[in-house]
């Protein structure tokens, strides 16, 4: 499986995401934000956490206009897989690959801690390693993770089984306790929690491993 991890100048979880992909057996290439194409044959693009361009305007807003994001959008429109984590999720909503927006946390503070996530669907290449209803512990680390979409969109996401994860104890005010959502074709996942921070017994636990393993398994030609 070939993965590409996007590097914005303010990305700071790019290495962490690459390590998690590699540990699951992927072949990883880092792609600079000024590049307008992705490497040949990439199966999945990882948009990592961090502060893409400082996040001074609106988290992910400037990144959405970057050359590499045009390439990511093209990859997604071809049916390619995309995983956006934290700032990556914010970038994907700003790019329009996923609906809704991430607002400032309801408590107005940055929060870094491990939270409980309920797996809402195992029907995706990202979540098929879990059973729907599983509760897993995955760290969050964000200031703007309060998922917002209008009633209609929330209802559609829920109705189409596109809510991948919900919080068991909503830390940030997200509507419908939503922590992660899938695109219509179920090949783009955006989530605020960091599965790459729970992919190693010596750091943050191993509850995120199944996500990376499932991806590698699903995307590797047998």
């Amino acid at each position, binding site marked *: 499986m070939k993965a590409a991890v996007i590097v914005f*100048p*303010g990305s700071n*979880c790019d*290495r*962490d995401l690459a390590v998690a992909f590699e540990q699951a057996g992927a072949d990883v290439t880092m792609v600079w934000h000024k590049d307008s194409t992705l490497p040949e044959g990439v199966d999945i693009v990882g948009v990592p956490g961090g502060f893409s361009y*400082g996040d001074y305007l609106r988290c992910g807003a400037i990144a959405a206009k970057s050359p590499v994001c045009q390439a990511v959008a093209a990859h997604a429109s071809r049916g390619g897989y995309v995983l956006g984590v934290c700032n990556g999720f914010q970038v994907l909503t700003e790019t329009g690959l996923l609906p809704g927006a991430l607002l400032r946390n309801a408590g107005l503070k940055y*929060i870094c801690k491990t939270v409980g996530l309920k797996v809402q669907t195992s029907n995706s290449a990202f979540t098929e390693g879990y059973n729907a209803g599983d509760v897993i512990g995955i760290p969050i680390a964000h200031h703007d993770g309060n998922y917002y979409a209008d009633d209609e969109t929330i209802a559609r996401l829920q109705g189409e089984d596109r809510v991948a994860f919900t919080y068991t104890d909503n830390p940030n005010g997200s509507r419908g306790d939503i922590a992660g959502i899938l695109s219509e074709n179920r090949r783009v996942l955006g989530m605020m929690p960091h599965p790459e921070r729970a992919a190693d017994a*010596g750091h943050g636990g191993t509850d995120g491993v199944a996500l990376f393993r499932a991806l590698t398994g699903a995307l590797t030609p047998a």
Partner: protein
Amino acid sequence: MQDPAITPDLIAAHGLKPDEYDRILEIIGREPTFTELGIFSAMWNEHCSYKSSKKWLRTLPTEGPQVICGPGENAGVVDIGDGQAVVFKMESHNHPSYIEPYQGAATGVGGILRDVFTMGARPIASMNSLSFGEPSHPKTRQLVSGVVAGVGGYGNCFGVPCAGGEVRFHRAYNGNCLVNAFAAGLADADKIFYSAASGVGMPVVYLGAKTGRDGVGGATMASAEFDDTIEEKRPTVQVGDPFTEKRLMEACLELMKTGAVISIQDMGAAGLTCSAVEMGDKGGLGVRLDLEKVPVREENMTAYEMMLSESQERMLMVLFPEKEAEAKAVFDKWDLDFAIVGETIAEDRFLIMLDGEVKADLPLSKLSSEAPEYDRPWVPTPEAAPLGDVPQVDPIDALKMLLGSPNYAAKQWVYEQYDTMVMGDSARTPGLGAGIIRVHGTGKALAFTSDVTPRYVKANPEVGGKQAVAEAYRNLTAVGAKPLATTDNMNFGNPEKPEIMGQFVGAIKGIGAACLALDMPIVSGNVSLYNETDGAAILPTPTIGAVGLIASPDEIIGCDVREGHQLLLVGDTRGHLGQSALLAEVFGREEGDAPEVDLDAEKRNGEFIRANRELITACTDVADGGIALAAFELAEKTGVGVHLDSDATPLLFGEDQARYLVACNFDKAEALMTAAAQAGVTLTSLGKFTGDSVKFGGSEAALGDLAEIYRGGFAAAVA
């Protein structure tokens, strides 16, 4: 714009004493220009020149086989084997944080990160030691929320995990909070970068954010006491941009790999002045700067303003001219401003030009070599009066009072605002004892701790200084690490007062003795004096930051106890209650002497822990709050109750040093007893972990109820 005339008032406003000004006249043989006066003021203030502390700092032990570079550079460098080094330092940003908490704290973090990556190291851990006034003081909440948000705002964006720190409250900090920021980075031991320039005619390159008027005179401000005009000083605080800092770091590390860098110095306090002088002085060279080439973000900046600006995220370097194209490619990649702003020259001159006009022309080496140095008069701190009677208390009631105090309550309200997990190597996040960050891609890990008990230092500076180092040693030991080296951040009041200077001298003596005995040399540090408001000084607060090495993952000692584990105490208990947390929090008394520190016992007991780590499932050091607090913290961590046989106040709340609590199963406890007897270490059985309550003799409470107090105490008091 016409430069102002040099008058006695102007000289005084620059923090220069009349005799210091006379010295300037002697050195240059004429009246200084306005810009020159500013340069002298920047170089000779307390913050930059260490003029009151230098004499005593020289007495600290700074050497050892593990030390690659001791104090004097941007940060200390210590060998961690396999050709790798850890680079670290702690630095204060006290005065700016009190004036403007968010930006003051944020730029404090930015400054210390820059010190680390300037040496060629990628930052991998940060800590913050914060001291605030009493919770009921009207400014405290605003300071706590601003400082914590500022520390987080900068570090989280930059992308360095917070590994630990301290937060304390005491009325002595009502008028002066302390923000001590620590950073550590990882580098190849043979690829460390230093500030000494070499070669004549080499380009001096400016890299990073543009220069503005922010922070002009900041270092001078930080070298004075506060009074009621404090609010007027807000414009001297700089504004931070962590996104630029992150790019600056990546660009510097990339540039260093190209071999283009001869020397490098970050622009911190007193900006361009300090960094250029440092590079020239260390290299035995002069420096010429053409200020019209400096990237600026404001119009009509004068030479004076440019030389004294403390705009953040800026770096000065001397590059090999033939590598200019490669250097430019790196800067362009990261979209950073850079400019060649001058060159090294052979004469001993600091020549500042603006649009062809000479603004300053000073003998460069004399700016530092002739800087004033004082042997300030000092008086030893009088011996503490003996402690009067301490009434018996119900130990559970006393514990509840400690747990509800923001000084001893859980600090997750603070730590959850910091990214503690970025970079994917946090083996132990903040909360209990030292933090652990793995050395990426190896089996090694580094442990980090920051310690001081200011009450002890006030009562007995020398013993308090020793104790701070000893506690750091124990915190590192308790996670299985071998203590390597130390950085000290000395926060004190006005050194012109003999009793304050006496505190400083005493603390230095104690720190020096402990660092020597425990083989933890001081490799870097910072001094912050004049922490006084309207004549009232802070508690003497020599913060000790220390780093330990863990050679392999199985050397880590955990902190997870299990049902049925034995609770054992390593070390001797005499029941010392002087200056204890119990006395302060329960009785509102700060009396008696600091607990005695036996450095031989510290070493013996620490080595015992490390030698027997296989027998120890969980371990924590016993510090303020005594056995009662330490046992509770272990129990709370995993949610298993703890029952101690005794309910005696001195045993439970005494703060004798050189002690650890250890948990393990019965068989291992037996083996540990045998090992202790052989090693001549006192090991006592105190009780065991069981059930869901905390019990001291006949006094008992549900663990859940206590945990609720402990988890809520901080926010209830100050959030």
